[in-house]
């Protein structure tokens, strides 16, 4: 059975609620235009996962509303026809959203009848196989949704999750109020409430890069009870990793085990019911796509500029927040090195946030060299001989205490965005910990005006396009 889910960014969600939820306590309606993200196999459910990504909110204009009461709404459908027309030309799916001022988070029999009529209108106009979604919203901002399918036995299937992503991350899913809690996670519920535990159990998180930082993130997420984790890395455990790779042992290095395999083993052995899927590949490899698209949130724990640049695009195209973590230790050449810089960074990218390119965190020249080295080693060596590429330097310094502390900072950022313990505006888009100066900074950066990713909404939620993410592989 296919999994269906919906993602909307905070800006669009706020526009939607402002239109729907009014002081008069009456029903209103709007359309959401959605792009698609298709995952052939969701790595945990082993089924097709279809994600719908909201790109535009189209309010039903007040002058088109024929009747609006606290329990009923009817409106002229000319704006619906316009949306259907746009859907055909731009390969979109239309969602119908309305509010239930009484707080009922389910579809009424009246909704069933109205939406059946709208579906029929959509089928008549856009042809067989046309799908529409519908969403209800309550005054406290809760949402539930479904997809109308034709032909099908029931006529519709529920949306498994609706995500709102931005400075906060909200998850709406059917059993949020009733899911059972695990005794092992009781103590953190005492701090943050049951709802957080349920959100964590529902979450699908990808960790890109299983080094010192990624391994710490993985173990922290597993102990928090995150239900679904997928790990991306193409490397094996090496003896020189053992000073910082959580869960890895000398035996893993001797057996030349894949890092992600070690991670999945360690998480399974915790026995917390966390499902961890290993993907032994570079994040840019097409084999990663289904798993990446299936995730709600990603952690970027790679030190590879090319991989980071890939995630930077993914965050916006797929409305998927990426919590990117980096550590830079710069020393001189003395026998006992003097620290010139010991800086760690947790940066959140995705809708509403400045991207890593505009923050000048990614060096695109190094990224291109790393990609060339992977794809065309001969040409890379030739250019290296001509001094046209930078070449790899010595291994960079790494200390477990700093990589792990950064992992804690990154995971705490996620916890705040889910639970809100830091209060309003408690999110940090970019936090730099200067370990050698014992201080934190939060450098701000505005998007470059022409940035196609973060300066405008144009690419937010673009989803599946050809070529993938409008970039050269």
């Amino acid at each position: 059975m296919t999994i269906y889910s919906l993602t909307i960014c905070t800006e669009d969600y706020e526009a939607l609620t402002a239109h729907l939820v009014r002081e008069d306590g009456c029903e209103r309606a709007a359309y959401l235009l959605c792009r698609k993200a298709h995952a052939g196999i969701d790595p945990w459910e082993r089924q097709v996962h279809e994600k719908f990504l909201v790109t535009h909110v189209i309010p039903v204009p007040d002058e088109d509303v024929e009747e609006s009461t606290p329990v009923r709404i009817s409106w002229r459908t000319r704006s619906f026809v316009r949306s259907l027309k746009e859907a055909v030309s731009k390969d979109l799916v239309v969602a119908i959203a309305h509010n239930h001022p009484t707080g009922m988070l389910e579809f009424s029999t009246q909704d069933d009848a109205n939406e059946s009529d709208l579906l029929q209108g959509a089928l008549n106009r856009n042809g067989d196989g046309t799908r529409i979604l519908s969403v209800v919203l309550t005054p406290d901002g809760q949402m539930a949704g479904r997809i109308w399918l034709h032909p099908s036995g029931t006529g519709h299937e529920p949306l498994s999750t609706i995500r709102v992503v931005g400075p906060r991350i909200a998850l709406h899913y059917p059993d949020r109020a009733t899911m059972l809690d695990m005794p092992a996670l009781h103590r953190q519920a005492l701090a943050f409430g049951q709802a957080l535990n349920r959100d964590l159990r529902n979450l699908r998180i990808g960790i890109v890069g299983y080094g010192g930082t990624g391994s710490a993130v993985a173990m922290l997420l597993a102990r928090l009870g995150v239900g679904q984790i997928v790990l991306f890395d193409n490397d094996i455990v090496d003896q020189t990793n053992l000073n910082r790779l959580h869960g890895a042992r000398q035996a893993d290095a001797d057996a030349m085990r894949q890092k992600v395999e070690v991670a999945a083993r360690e998480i399974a052995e915790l026995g917390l019911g966390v499902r961890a899927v290993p993907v032994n590949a570079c994040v840019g490899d097409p084999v990663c796509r289904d798993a990446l698209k299936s995730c709600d949130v990603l952690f970027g724990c790679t030190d590879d500029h090319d991989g980071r640049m890939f995630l930077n695009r993914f965050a916006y195209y797929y409305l998927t927040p990426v919590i990117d973590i980096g550590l830079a230790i710069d020393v001189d050449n003395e026998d006992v090195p003097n620290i010139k810089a010991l800086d760690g960074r947790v940066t959140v990218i995705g809708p509403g946030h400045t991207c890593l390119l505009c923050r000048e965190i990614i060096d695109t020249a190094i990224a291109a060299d790393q990609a060339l080295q992977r794809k065309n080693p001969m040409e890379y060596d030739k250019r290296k001989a001509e001094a046209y590429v930078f070449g790899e330097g010595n291994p960079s310094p790494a200390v477990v205490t700093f990589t792990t502390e950064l992992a804690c900072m990154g995971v705490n950022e996620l916890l705040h965005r889910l639970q809100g313990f830091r209060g309003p505006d408690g999110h940090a888009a970019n936090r730099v910990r200067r370990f050698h100066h014992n201080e934190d900074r939060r450098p701000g950066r505005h998007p470059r005006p022409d940035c196609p990713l973060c300066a405008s909404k144009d690419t937010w939620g673009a989803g599946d396009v050809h070529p993938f993410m409008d970039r050269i592989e």
Partner: protein
Amino acid sequence: MSFLPARDREYLESKEIVFEEHDEGGQKGIILKDRPLPVDRFDTEKADILILLPSGYPDTAPDMFYLLPWLKLTNGGQYPRRADQPFQFKGQSWQRW
């Protein structure tokens, strides 16, 4: 199948620039066909321009370009400085710039 990002394709089409897309062992390039060159500077008036698109483009920028036929300067009859290296693409030897 086209590998060029939609934005670039739309731009080239809007300017009526004839182009071909080629993928040679994963190295992707576009060839702009028969492009006019600055008048009186080279011994040819038109050339095909090959631009290799690096992995990650458009986040990464193309480096160098390649011409066919090879050009010499009208003034002196030499290849321009550092534009004398061949590059094999699509079974042809291109002049690297």
